């Protein structure tokens, strides 16, 4: 009984996202982007993971490689800047690269239609099985945060399930350690189809700072077919929520 009263203490703390914009989600520094189109001579050591490069005479940042250390913004504030907002998930690995190429946009649109056809049966209920394939532990915290009263994904019909037999979505964190390759394959095998796979975090997308090496793959794309890519080290809960909603087609693929 005391707990029931305690539960009412703070009133409604839950976000209204995605029905309404959430101020925290809007201001969260989730992506680094080049500020100017032109290329420039860059120090190779500027980015520890090689997310920054030049392509066809312009700077590009691969959000899928970026671990959000902010070194580039600190060292070259003239070229790079934080972009707030949490809609960072994409349906295509290439779409994480900014600026985006036009053909990538077409590919994304195709993927979106294919995904929509595949997941028609999910309706408004979504069950997620999470697998850690070599994360640093912080991704698990952010995934678990989705269950706290602030994000409370249950209100959206999203649930975490212990058994892969009940799962619709496989949420994979970590860079894909070789030791987890076989357990991950067994999990994928145990999940009924249709199945949507989300690679959560920069490690899962590209291996981040630890992959590839003798012990880990270059992201989990080597191990399973990924449908949704979420960058971030770790991705914030709003980014994860964006990925989940994107996976089931409840928001437009390009949130911003």
């Amino acid at each position, binding site marked *: 009984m*005391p*707990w*029931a009263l*305690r*539960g009412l*203490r*703070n009133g409604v*703390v839950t976000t209204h996202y995605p029905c309404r914009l959430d101020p925290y989600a809007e201001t*969260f520094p989730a992506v680094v982007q080049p500020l100017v189109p032109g290329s420039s001579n860059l120090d190779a*050591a500027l980015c*520890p993971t090689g997310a920054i490069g030049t392509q066809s005479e312009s700077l590009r940042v691969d959000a899928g490689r970026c*671990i*959000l*250390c*902010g*070194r580039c913004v*600190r060292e070259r504030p003239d070229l790079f800047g*934080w972009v707030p907002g949490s809609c960072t998930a994409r349906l295509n690995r290439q779409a994480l690269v900014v600026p985006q190429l036009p053909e990538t946009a077409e590919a994304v649109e195709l993927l979106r239609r294919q995904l929509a056809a595949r997941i028609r049966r999910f309706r408004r209920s979504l069950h997620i*099985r*999470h*697998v*850690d*394939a*070599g*994360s*640093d*532990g*912080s*991704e*698990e*915290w952010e995934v*678990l*945060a989705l269950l*706290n*009263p*602030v994000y409370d994904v249950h209100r959206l019909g999203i649930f*975490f399930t*212990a*058994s*892969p037999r009940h799962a619709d979505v496989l949420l994979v964190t970590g*860079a894909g*350690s*070789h*030791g*987890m*390759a076989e*357990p*991950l394959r*067994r*999990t994928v095998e145990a999940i009924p189809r249709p199945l949507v796979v989300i690679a959560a975090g920069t490690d899962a997308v590209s291996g*981040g*700072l*630890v992959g590839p*090496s*003798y*012990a*880990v793959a270059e992201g989990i794309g080597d191990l399973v077919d990924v449908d949704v890519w979420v960058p971030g*080290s*770790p991705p*914030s809960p709003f980014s994860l929520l964006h990925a989940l909603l994107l996976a089931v087609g409840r928001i437009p693929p390009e949130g911003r």
Partner: protein
Amino acid sequence: MSRPAVRSLGQDSVAAVYEALRVRLANGQRFAALLGRGDPATGTVLIALVAHDGDVTPLNATLPAGATRYPALTPQLPAAFWYERAIHDLVGLVPDGHPRLDPLVLPHRNDGSPLPRPGAPGQPARIDPDEGALSVHLHGTGVFTIPHGPVRSGVFESVEYLVETPGEDITHLRIRPHAKHRGVQKRFEGMTVEDGMLLAERVEGIASVAHALAFAHAVETLAGAEIPVAAAMIRVLHAELERIANHLDVLGKLTEAAGLAVATARFGLHKEHILRLVGALSGSRFGRGVVVPGGVTALPRLPAHQVTTELDRLQHAINGDVRALLDTSSFLDRVRTTGPLEPELARTHGALGPIGRGSGYADDCRVTRPYDGYQQLAPPPVPVRGAGDAQARMQVRIAEIETAFHLARQAVGRLPDCDTDRLSVVMQAGAGHAVGWAEAPQGEVLYLLELDCHGQIGYCAPRSASFHNLMLFPSTFVGDVLTDFPFNEASFGLSIAGLVM
């Protein structure tokens, strides 16, 4: 900070190191780690780290080229059990007389095929996991094994607990953590100090700040640098906020195991607020990018008074829920006498952090080997409980939340008086070895760091509290049944990422 900077590696024999270790332990010093490096073909070094008031001393023994075996330490010092398994995994040395050389941090084959040896210089061969079944350790009528993991029921890090049970009782527990080995130690090699800093933050993601601090301390020791007071205070602030978040996470997991949904939600809410506060201060919800060798990157992005107000508000809210939790008898019944860790075992093992302190053994390096702002601030009271059960560990954590708030407020309070123009010192770390430490929420984190003459990392061995403490986990299931498992696990509050790295 009056630490001797560069220490030379000794050339003592293994026996001499063991004798020195024995004498030091008999004098009340603590065995902190046993590490190995090198290649048996070209010569290897065993490094025992001994912690005592004021410093952590490495004791080195060099094995000649071609030596693949050495006398095991474990028979004399059970705490070395996992360390020697890890050495076997990473370096390929065989400790003679070791009771069980099962794979620990690295999957490998027991059929005599060569080990990957990422501990040796050069690129090791790709891991080819051996999923061959391990033999059982418990024999008797109807005894069977329940595998928990590696893909566990819920959002957990991957680890495989094998419960050998005759049904209901947890008679014997084995841990196979190697599935998520990421090769972090190898990854450090050849990195610049700045990049190493980023990797250190990702060794044990939930204790990013503590790992960053331990790494930074090692670098600063090598450089003989003294960091600005403001930076020291900012480090304390973030370290203590991280402690609060971790302990709230443990409380949330404990209440979730008991099915107290409202309590789980409340602690989840508080934890989210702490993470948001950290995010508001630093831009990262885990305080990443704050600590750099020589200081910190930036001032907190919120003014001090606003931080203090927020801390007061959070502490008030958390205290109310903690009080309610301590009045919930149905919950206390589940944690009381669950997962008892014998005080004697905690002492001889040198159990770290809240786990040691729950069993009457306290070694808090914020007090015994103070660093950063802890040197200037009043030393925090170290809560100690003697019962050794999950409840004692929880009580220690609750008390630590209290002191963490106090320390964080003190640190913020000092900030306006500090010179905040200079937040880091420019320094040039020379080649050499150093040990850095910090008190993570899980317990003491140690970094043994070697820089080469180019300022690059030659060798970096993190030792997390998770590694040292999880060794004790199987010893704490006396009289416990399967349903006690989540309580005991949550009360340990460890990270697998920090264990296998």
